């Protein structure tokens, strides 16, 4: 009897032990293989294409075993923060331009420039400007996976029907207001959806004035006057009151495939250029769209557009196989075969060879986004440094909660609300340093 209990207890302890052992054990590595871990965020299309490229690479390099993990954007970052705290980040991780600086300030990323020097990473076909975005303080922390820019998509048919001329590529917000009102008056549809509150528009207004919302040492505002943004918001309110754009109660879907331009309820929308594929796909091939650059502020000195590296691949500082990781990244960005599968889903490839190689393979819709990037390449403003840590705090808790929402719901005037950004910025940047 007693023995029976002891045996039972013994078995039990053994089981728990085994359970704990297996739970904390790393997945088995096949002997003789180098294991690389790789994580990214994105849509199902991206997952499918990326996995195909991984399998292709493994077939060509039998000594490499790539273990991957993917998720949607928000879940991805929640996962990564936990893994970073556990010192367990993947070797290769996808980064956004906005997160590159934050991740670097935490010491998570490896400087890849030695691998550029020894040509493991081959940038001979890539314009310098497209590599620049991944360099912080002289260290290459991420390899650009493709280029993107913001754009206004215009429904050509609606413009023709309204008899409103298509805007010039250097149009201003004043031109936008006139265009918008004319379209609304003649067609009685919205001219734009409700997405212009986006903080990227705030930033683009100052970009066209040659300024950045943050100062160079990232301690406070870098713009001289609140007026341009106040003017912009007041213009939005005039349009909102005229019914030319949806009010806050008519807030439209932020999902590009369900936006009002798709159903013909509005004549324009504001998106990232790589989203055109999703938008046009949802609207149908027979529709006619054109992409134009963002409107500029009055007195602009340069374009309100910049070319943004859509995403990066970075090697983490804890990686045990940085060279192998760099080799894989090189394949990912420079191999025409890999990019024939990826097909610019992450943005227009930075390497000119790859870009030309896949240009012939893409359909008319994607051609349009290639053409748009070509068009703005020569005029685009230089890219600002990545946003400092504290940016998301400022945007969530001040920009949206205390400025834009109260403004659109007409609780207070732009003149009273906008200075709050300037006032709170230094405190928030200090707190998140």
């Amino acid at each position, binding site marked *: 009897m007693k023995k029976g209990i002891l045996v039972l*207890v013994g078995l*039990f302890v053994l089981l728990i032990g085994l359970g704990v052992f297996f739970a904390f054990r790393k997945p088995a590595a096949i002997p003789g293989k180098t294991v690389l871990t790789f994580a990214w965020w994105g849509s199902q299309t991206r997952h499918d294409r990326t996995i195909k490229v991984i399998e292709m690479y493994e077939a060509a390099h039998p000594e490499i075993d790539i273990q991957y993990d993917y998720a949607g954007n928000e879940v991805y970052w929640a996962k990564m*923060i936990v893994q*970073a705290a556990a010192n367990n980040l993947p070797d290769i991780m996808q980064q956004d331009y906005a997160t590159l600086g934050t991740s670097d300030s935490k010491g998570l990323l490896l400087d890849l420039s030695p691998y550029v020097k020894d040509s493991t990473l081959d940038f001979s076909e890539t314009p310098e400007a497209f590599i620049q975005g991944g360099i912080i303080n002289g260290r290459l922390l991420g390899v650009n996976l493709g280029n993107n820019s913001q754009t206004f998509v215009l429904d050509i048919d609606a413009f023709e029907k309204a008899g409103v001329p298509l805007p010039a590529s250097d149009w201003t917000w004043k031109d936008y207001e006139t265009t918008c009102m004319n379209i609304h008056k003649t067609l009685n549809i919205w001219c734009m959806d409700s997405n212009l509150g986006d903080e990227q528009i705030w930033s683009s207004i100052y970009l066209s004035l040659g300024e950045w919302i943050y100062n160079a040492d990232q301690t406070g505002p870098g713009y001289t006057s609140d007026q341009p943004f106040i003017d912009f918001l007041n213009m939005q309110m005039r349009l909102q009151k005229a019914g030319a754009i949806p009010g806050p109660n008519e807030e439209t879907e932020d999902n590009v495939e369900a936006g009002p331009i798709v159903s013909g309820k509005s004549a324009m929308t504001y998106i990232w250029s790589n989203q055109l594929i999703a938008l046009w796909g949802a609207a149908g091939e027979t529709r006619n769209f054109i992409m134009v650059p963002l409107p500029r502020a009055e007195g602009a000195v340069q374009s309100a557009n910049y070319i943004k590296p859509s995403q990066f691949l970075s090697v983490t500082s804890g990686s045990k196989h940085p060279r192998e990781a760099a080799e894989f990244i090189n394949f990912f960005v420079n191999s025409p075969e890999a990019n024939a599968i990826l097909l610019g889903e992450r943005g227009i490839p930075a390497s000119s060879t790859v870009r030309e190689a896949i240009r012939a393979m893409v359909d008319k819709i994607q051609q349009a986004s290639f053409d748009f990037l070509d068009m703005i390449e020569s005029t685009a403003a230089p890219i600002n440094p990545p946003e400092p840590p504290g940016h*998301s705090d400022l945007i969530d*808790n001040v920009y949206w*909660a*205390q400025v834009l*929402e109260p403004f659109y719901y007409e609780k207070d005037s732009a003149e009273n609300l906008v200075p709050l950004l300037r006032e709170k910025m230094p405190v928030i940047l200090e707190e*998140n340093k």
Partner: protein
Amino acid sequence: MNRSSVPALPLKKRRKNRRQDNLVGYVFLSPWLIGFFAFTIIPMITSLYLAFTKYDGVREPEWIGIANFVKMFTDDPRYFKSVQATLCYTFFAVPLRLVIALLLAFILNNHRRGTTIYRTIFYIPSIVGGSIGVAVMWKEIFGNDGLMNFVLAGFGIPPAAWLSDPRTAIWTLILLSLWQFGSPMLIFLAGLKNIPQELYEAAEIDGADGFARLTRITIPLLTPVIFFNLVMQLIGGFMVFTQAFVITGGAPLDTTLFYNLYLYIRGFRNFQMGYASAMAWILLLIVAIATALTFKSSNYWVFYEDREKDRGQA
């Protein structure tokens, strides 16, 4: 065994046996104990420590004393909006849900036929009610082009912006929460079944009508169960998160920015784990105070049969 040492051994042996019994007990408890320490006690202590630090999840936590709490109460307008939204939600959703649960329990209690089936059917929403799937469906139903406006249009009523109008948004979430009346309903039902039938029979003989029986017998005898349900639902009410996270994201004008949603935004979107931990501890305090007040109030309205008897004897 040595029989000669009988007077000495039993005590020792008993003690040894007891020790062995205890050991076996702990071993069998160990799965729970491990879980309790690893997933409850240690994280709680860690979070208490983090509440006094600045911690972005990666870099070493930096001790900043009570700065997080000071900021929360003096320099964070969103914090108060989140408290306000959560209190508003709890204040309306919990009583409404209990009323619905009680009404259904009455109906089920009075109709004997098919009770089991109805009980199951009524319980189903509680299983799916809190899920992401239902929240997504809710978002579609109350969206500007959703089912609700479509149906209203059929009656010639102009469409409303249920989810983006600051006056209505929180009510759509409260309405969604009413779905989850299942578990209080079952508890009420058990409570109703526990009320002795003789009391009703005696009351009937004395000529009490249905209403009198309800207010003089059923409700008083049910108050301990109502009290239990109230406390449980109150605690659950403060923890509301999923619905707002999926449906409104806290908008419009922060009217649905529930406490836990704001905590999540601070912790996982803005990477301010220290601040989020401080918020979590204040929430614990708020829930504790709300529960304590409910307990205090129970002296005035909860009826305990045994206590009444004591009073009668005294």
